[in-house]
């Protein structure tokens, strides 16, 4: 998480940001990475976050179903975030809770709490490409962004909803990713993501995610109110709206263990 204490990123930031003359020799790969490093860097220091996630799933015929999830996250220095999610809807999974310790490199640690059995189950985390709750969002689309998860290539500058955007191609490092590449639009003033095109394992266009109605929290943390994912291959779509964002509410490690998972509800 804290890029300054990560040797690789310290090097990169030093090379790409702090020492301007090297920029002349900057390759498309280096520039692509520098944009992600900057984007991550600008959002550091949010400490902890709570929000409500509502999903509306739509199939080709326009039939809808709803998912409601409450989420807590904790920023961890030198590692991926910790998060705890609780399902409210659909009703049959109400009270099911999910605890995740994400890592920039390697498998995440994940546990599921099943309220009917009162059982905590450690689950395999390599299912990154699978759909989250039957939606068009894969697990990997919802996990925290870490610079180390991709390699990069800057493509071009282009007008976008956020003004002028860098267009960067990202190649997942994890062999279990469902994508060969993602093309990401990042605006040049605030380094917010506005659009992502996803390409499947055969490199065919799969999905497009757009970000809407960004709000600024605590003067530096930009979060969208709405994320729309459209699957071009199936015609299905999922709208993910975020409510009740709260930052720095005083969460700590003790809110992210198996005991807190069991009483998350």
């Amino acid at each position, binding site marked *: 998480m804290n890029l300054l204490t990560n040797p690789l990123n310290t090097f990169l930031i030093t090379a790409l940001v702090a020492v301007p003359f090297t920029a002349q020799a900057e390759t498309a790969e280096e520039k692509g990475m520098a944009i992600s490093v900057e984007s991550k860097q600008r959002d550091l220091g949010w400490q902890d976050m709570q929000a409500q996630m509502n999903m509306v799933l739509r199939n080709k015929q326009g039939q809808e179903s709803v998912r409601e999830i409450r989420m807590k996250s904790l920023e961890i220095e030198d590692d991926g975030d910790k998060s705890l999610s609780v399902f409210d809807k*659909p009703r049959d999974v109400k009270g099911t809770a999910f605890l995740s310790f994400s890592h920039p490199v390697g498998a995440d640690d994940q546990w599921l709490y099943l309220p009917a059995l009162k059982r905590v189950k450690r689950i395999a985390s390599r299912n990154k490409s699978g759909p989250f709750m039957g939606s068009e969002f894969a697990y990997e689309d919802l996990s925290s962004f870490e610079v180390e998860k991709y390699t990069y290539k800057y493509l071009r500058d282009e007008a976008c909803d956020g003004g002028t955007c860098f267009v960067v191609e990202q190649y997942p490092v994890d062999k279990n990713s469902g994508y060969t590449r993602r093309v990401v639009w990042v605006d040049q003033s605030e380094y917010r993501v506005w659009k992502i095109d996803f390409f499947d394992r055969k490199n065919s266009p799969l999905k497009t995610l757009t970000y809407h109605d960004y709000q600024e929290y605590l003067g530096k943390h930009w979060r969208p109110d709405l994320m729309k994912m459209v699957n071009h291959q199936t015609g299905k779509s999922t709208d993910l709206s975020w409510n009740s964002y709260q930052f720095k509410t005083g969460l700590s490690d003790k809110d992210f263990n198996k005991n807190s998972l069991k009483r998350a509800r």
Partner: protein
Amino acid sequence: MRTQKALLQTGLATALLAALPASAETYFEVSGKVAGELRAFTEDAQFAGQNQDTNLSFLVEPEFFWEWNDGDDSLTFTPYLRVDENDPERTHGDIRELSWLHVGEDWELRAGIRKVFWGVTEFQHLVDVINQTDAVDDFDGEDKLGQPMINLSLVRDWGIVDLFVLPGFRERTFPGREGRLRGGVVVNTDAAEYESGDEEKHIDTAIRWSHTLGDFDIGAYWFHGTNRDPELVVRNQGGQTVLVPRYVQMDQIGFDLQATLDSWLWKVETLWRDTTKEDYFAAQAGFEYTFYGIRESSADLGVLLEYGWDERGEDATSNVQNDLFFGGRITLNDEASTELLAGMSHDLDYDSLSVVVEASRRFGDNWKASLDGRFFSADDNRDLASAFDRDDHLQLSIERYF
């Protein structure tokens, strides 16, 4: 229902009511489910009294939840009622939960009637010892009766330590004369016997440590008190031969481990049980491997293999002594959470077989349906499973959540 009266008399309930919030900051919520369940048996019954080819049953399980003190205190009340068409023993009520939870800085106090699950394996829950099995609810041992307890949970860097005091013992439920899926001789649950003079008032204790070390989740415990698994002893009551449950005292040490390695889950549960009559080891171990996104789809296929062993061999009072389990689970990961599960257990000593197939999906936002098939083949009379030999059935369940 008598048992429940006894439970309430333990005074725990009184303590809970005293802890009820008076503040205006209280959050209150009701949720739960109602369900209807139809069983159709494919063969005539094996024993006298079991005059049912089909059986209808309904259950209701609401949950009332109060929270106050910014979530540091909460109260949960989950009553349960099942009504059965044929078996009066299966028509029963229970308090699944009536408990108060207080969250401290690095500890939690949980007091009241609760349910606790320990263990990692799927086909047998060997080390799961705190709650009594509600064996009349279903024959698979997954349903549990609420257990009165005071549980202090301490969170430390080196793991979570749970201390339990368990006042008030719950007797196992058994199908009555009219019920299917039972043994040849009906168990008279009104005449339970105990080794301890304190009978069902014996106060049991347990301590458990659990921890995560990288890819490994580990748990170990010591339990001292009344064995949840009764011996079934033959008694003569008014000239009639009946089976009576006898609950002995035991010390049990249990250990469970899961290694989560890429797509593999490796699981081990083992226990050592010491009673006046005997002491023995038993274990359940195996793996679960998941193929993700099979055939370019979103569906996953999980394959499970487990082996269950009991040191006492064919003398074991448990159903699992030298048994092999094989299972497959297909999850479509679609909007309706469609799932197909198949499990097979093979007793290597008695060469008996049981097969369970379960299909389930959600309809709309609040309904869920499942269709299960359960099939048994057990011809050796010494095998406890032989009592189910003619109880093959299909079961359709419709659940409504609120």
